């Protein structure tokens, strides 16, 4: 059976009552809300039939009672929890930062984006998530160090390549130091 059954008689007072009830039940558990609306509509159909007098309608609505009392007797709806970031995220950021530092000399073209990603993730987490702050701070520190390292490396490479024509490999420039 459909849960949005409309009353048989469509008397304006009945329609107004059911609309009020619908509104009052907005904060209620969805299943209770649907079943209450359906069963009260059935109650009204059964009590009033097709073309009731206004007096009869008033009487039945008075016996049903105020919609707020009905809503107060329902279970409240489960509150929606704000989406929490996954708990492993700080650890992941730190792992990425560490990996980027380790890769800095081997392959800066992977290391730099990885460090940037870890840094951004770390900053976002610091602004929102209160848990695992030490890990997140560590990720930010390591990724910043990696990025600084990459910048220094780039400066060195540029200064060296101004003297030589071929761009030396990172290993060579490290050995020159």
């Amino acid at each position, binding site marked *: *059976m459909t849960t949005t059954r409309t009353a*048989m008689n469509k008397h304006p007072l009945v329609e107004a009552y059911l609309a009020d*009830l619908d509104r009052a039940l907005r904060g*209620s558990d969805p*299943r*209770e809300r649907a*079943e*209450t609306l359906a*069963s*009260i509509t*059935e*109650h009204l*159909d*059964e*009590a009033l*039939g097709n073309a009731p007098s206004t007096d009869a309608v008033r009487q039945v609505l008075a*016996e*049903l*009672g*105020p*919609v707020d*009392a*009905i809503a107060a*007797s*329902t*279970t409240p709806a489960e509150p929606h929890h704000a989406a929490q970031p996954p708990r492993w995220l700080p650890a992941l950021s730190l792992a990425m930062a560490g990996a980027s530092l380790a890769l800095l000399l081997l392959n800066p073209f992977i290391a730099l984006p990885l460090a940037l990603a870890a840094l951004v993730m770390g900053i976002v987490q610091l602004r929102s998530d209160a848990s695992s702050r030490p890990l997140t701070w560590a990720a930010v520190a390591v990724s910043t160090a990696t990025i600084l390292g990459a910048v220094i490396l780039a400066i060195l490479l540029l200064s060296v390549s101004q003297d030589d024509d071929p761009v030396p490999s990172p290993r060579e420039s490290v050995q020159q130091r």
Partner: protein
Amino acid sequence: MTGVSESVLTQLRKGVLEYCVLACLRTGPAYGLELASRLGRHQVLFASEGTLYPLLSRLRKQGLVETTWQESTSGPPRRYYELTAEGTAALAAFAATWGPFREDVDTVLKETR
């Protein structure tokens, strides 16, 4: 009815009303309007008939009551509510507990006068 007695009543009803609904179904299935009129005769227990329906919804969710549709000669099919086996057991447990509980409360209230 004052605010204080109203809130006392609300608390008391919370513990007991669902068992009274189960008790109304003890003699057999009943449809919503029937149950509402029966309970509505007891005004202290049950001032507003509409509050029956969220209660029935919870009882169904808990598996104490189930519903069936039956044809009616006087209009659309009616939803009938009836006790499940769990509902019967819950009602029996309540009935067994209520007597001693009520006596204790009465005794305490008398003793402390």
